[in-house]
């Protein structure tokens, strides 16, 4: 019995320890960001690997999510004779929730895991230590560019996801099923507000970008430097990013879209 309490206690202390470490790590990234921005090509390179390389999966899944929303939304709306509101349904659910959240989940598993693996492997092969020996800060050289690459690409990817989803909904609703084109766009524009809906969605995706990028670089930097440790760190990145995205989404939705 006492053993259980001892375990719980050590888990709690470890969790708080890690929280403190991650906060300090975040602060260090911000401090070294200026130094890493002086060599902007490093960040551009990461933007290429996490942003451009995620483009295909984001666009294709956005299209499919839009297609499904169009089909399912039409199915329900036409029972109430409200199939003209299909555009509203598709656009609002994408811009407010699905765009940032699903794009964030995809981004975490596509780009976040790769970043963790890369940094973790650098740690295993002692490249980070070698940099430190040469008075090159590994945080400025390795971590900060990957962090900013993720933070910058996330909102862009979420916007592309939403846009592609709206296009998918339009494709199913207007082209395949035959909802009126004018009603589709007019109802959508009537219901979707730029500040209230679109901008809040962008804020969400920025927050998810920071969360996913921070978790990915931290897990890589903090991993146990063995083959097993790296693989565990990658798993932790995907799992904690997904949890962080969903929990943060709930928190932000509850104060953004009240009433």
């Amino acid at each position, binding site marked *: 019995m006492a053993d259980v309490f001892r375990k719980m206690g050590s888990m709690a202390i470890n969790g708080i320890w890690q929280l403190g470490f991650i906060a300090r790590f975040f602060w260090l990234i911000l401090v070294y960001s200026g130094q890493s921005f002086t060599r902007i*090509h490093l960040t*551009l*390179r990461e*933007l*290429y690997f996490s*942003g*451009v390389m995620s*483009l295909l999966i984001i666009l294709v899944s956005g299209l499919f999510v839009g297609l499904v929303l169009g089909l399912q939304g039409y199915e329900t709306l036409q029972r*109430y004779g409200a199939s003209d509101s299909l555009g509203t349904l598709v*656009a609002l659910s994408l*811009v407010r929730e699905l765009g940032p959240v699903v794009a964030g989940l995809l981004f975490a598993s596509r780009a976040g895991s790769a970043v963790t693996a890369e940094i973790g492997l650098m740690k295993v092969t002692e490249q980070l230590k070698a940099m430190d020996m040469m008075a090159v800060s590994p945080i400025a050289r390795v971590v900060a560019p990957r962090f900013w690459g993720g933070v910058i*690409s996330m*909102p*862009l*990817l979420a*916007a*592309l996801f*939403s*846009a*592609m989803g*709206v296009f998918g909904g339009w494709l199913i609703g207007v082209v395949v099923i035959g909802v009126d084109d004018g009603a589709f*766009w007019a109802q*959508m*524009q*009537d219901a*979707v*507000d*730029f*500040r*209230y*809906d*679109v901008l809040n*969605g*962008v804020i969400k995706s920025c927050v998810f970008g920071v969360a996913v990028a921070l978790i990915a670089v931290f897990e890589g930097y903090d991993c146990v430097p063995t083959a097993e440790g790296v693989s565990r760190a990658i798993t932790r990145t995907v799992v904690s990013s997904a949890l962080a995205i969903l929990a943060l989404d709930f928190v932000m939705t509850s104060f953004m879209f009240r*009433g």
Partner: protein
Amino acid sequence: MSRTTMDLWVGVFVAMGIAALFFLALKVGSISGSDIQSPYLLSARFDNIGGLKVRAPVKVAGVLVGRVSEIRYDNERFQAEVVFTVDGRYKFPTDTFANILTSGLLGEQYLGLDPGGEEKLLAPGDVIKKTQSAVVLEKLISQFMFSKAAEGEPAPAK
């Protein structure tokens, strides 16, 4: 991969992302506030506002002229006070009638204004005196049922 082609791809990616944001802003959403010019405030008191909400449209003859900006309860008159902004291009006579209407059978509620024939115009901050409350479906049904019951009463007396 040489650096120049990579830069090109990053540029394409960022441009696409910004284009998607513009698409969401302009085609999917509408930028609010830009269509109402030099707004001024009016208010109206209602016995019952039904399901009227803040940011609900204010319409005259079906045309959007403003939005509801605030709804509060007046504890001295026991009435709801609805404050709304109106586009500065439009002026209304002092005997304008304010109704709470519903768009469609299940649609949203909005504030409808019916301009009267008075020559004096409402100044900013004025209160519209002639109002009609929202139609509450339960009241309507109970009235209908009571009137039906009243109709049926004389029959058994015979």
